[in-house]
């Protein structure tokens, strides 16, 4: 892993989000520094995914501020938000590959829509191949999503994220639903991508093994707030029963 600097690339302050009477985030704070892998752990339904969806503008918070690369995400016009989104990759829990498109078309899709960042690209094949090679799946270029295994789908989704060369990657439970061996491969891949592309990442997970390998720093999200922060070892050695529950 590359050493993170102390320059914050994402700053979340006092984030509140509720759905009806269900309070999900209740004053959550977070800072992600450049080059850092920040793992956010929490129970299912604790609001981890909602939090990163607020970061990318898929959910609107009830209150609080989110600064991404010094831009207030909830104050941006649609065009500016779309432009900022080219700097943020998002790996969805279920991969979210477009199932009516081949792997090549899945990767070309974001590329053809961001002509401001890349210009009009006549031949997208070299960029598609570069992204696929970085996840070790160059041979899958002409396959359809239904021909891929769960692990392959996750890798292709990662390649689709990488093709825009983002500065930040948000991972929503990247190892959920995968067997231990494939999970380990995905975690190692995430690490190698961080080195290769020098990205900063927020990783939402409840996979302790994944957190151990990848985290520079961890946050436990409990009761809608950041209950505790620290390195993996610090949190793992905590005597707090709420914290210990995650590591047992």
């Amino acid at each position, binding site marked *: 892993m590359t050493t993170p600097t102390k320059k914050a690339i994402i700053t979340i302050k006092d984030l509140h989000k509720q759905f009806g009477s269900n309070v999900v985030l209740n004053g959550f704070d977070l800072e992600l520094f450049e080059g850092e892998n920040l793992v956010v752990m929490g129970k299912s339904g604790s609001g981890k995914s909602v939090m990163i969806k607020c970061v990318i503008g*898929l959910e609107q918070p009830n209150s609080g501020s989110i600064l991404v690369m010094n831009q207030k995400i909830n104050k941006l016009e649609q065009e500016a938000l779309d432009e900022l*989104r080219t700097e943020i990759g998002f790996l969805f*829990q279920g991969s979210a590959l477009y199932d009516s498109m081949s792997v090549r078309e899945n990767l070309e899709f*974001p590329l053809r*829509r961001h002509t401001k960042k890349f210009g009009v690209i006549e031949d997208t094949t070299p960029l598609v191949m570069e992204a696929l090679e970085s996840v070790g799946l160059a041979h899958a270029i002409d396959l359809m999503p239904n021909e891929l295994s769960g692990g392959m789908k996750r890798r292709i989704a990662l390649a689709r994220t990488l093709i825009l060369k983002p500065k930040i990657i948000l991972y929503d439970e990247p190892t959920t639903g995968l067997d231990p061996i494939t999970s380990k491969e995905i975690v190692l891949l995430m690490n190698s991508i961080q080195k290769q592309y020098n990205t900063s990442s927020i990783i939402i997970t409840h996979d302790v093994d994944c957190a151990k390998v990848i985290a520079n720093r961890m946050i436990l999200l409990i009761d809608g707030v950041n209950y505790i922060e620290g390195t993996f070892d610090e949190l793992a050695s905590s005597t707090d029963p709420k914290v210990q529950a995650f590591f047992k």
Partner: protein
Amino acid sequence: MKKYFDNLTEALQNFLIEVGELSYFAGRFFKEFWKPPYEFKELLRQCFYIGNRSLLLVSVTGFIIGLVFTLQSRPTLQEFGAVSWMASMVSVSIIREIGPIITALICAGRIGSGIGAELGSMKVTEQIDAMEVSGTNPFKYLVITRILATTLMLPLLVIVGDFIAIYGSFLVENIKGNVSFTLYFNQVFNILEYSDIVPATIKTFFFGFAIGLVGCYKGYNCKKGTAGVGKAANAAVVYTSMLLFIIDFVAVFVTNIFYDL
């Protein structure tokens, strides 16, 4: 009694909310329709897909309707010695009413449910979110293209269906009454007027719009889970069918005002 009244109030409230949300969805279509970027490639793909997917079904149904309609009407017309009016009766009925409404109902089942299920499945598997994250407006890419495609393709499908239904009718007349192709189609075109063709064609655009709108609305607002996808597809057909009859009623009412039929 109070429980019955409460249930009724709740059902009415839900219905009004649904109508409000559907109207808002339609309003969003008209608001975003004019704004670039224009997704021409996806529109063409959808036009091809929607037209191609329904053509065989519309053709077969049209043919059978023409055939059965003529077979069923023939004995009655024969009783009055009015078999020579068969071509006129069949063509006016099919062009004005049977062709458009039957084709629209078939397409509601075929296309509307397909759109509802497709978008619903994209919603629950987060593909719509992924599209938004990649800087594409999913409403423009998925919804506007599909609604436009159904609006443009339904009139074409109705024209094809009408023609095949009349051809089916001709086959019966040819076999049973030895009527030639030229004579039959001469009678068809002699009886048809602009007041038969124009209003019937105009209403098919509305039918197409309704099929696309409701299918997209149900799919785009699909609740989480696979059960939600099934419900979206089913509701798309039911709501569209109801809406088609309402549009048809309004269209006939308006046509009567203009043409005094």
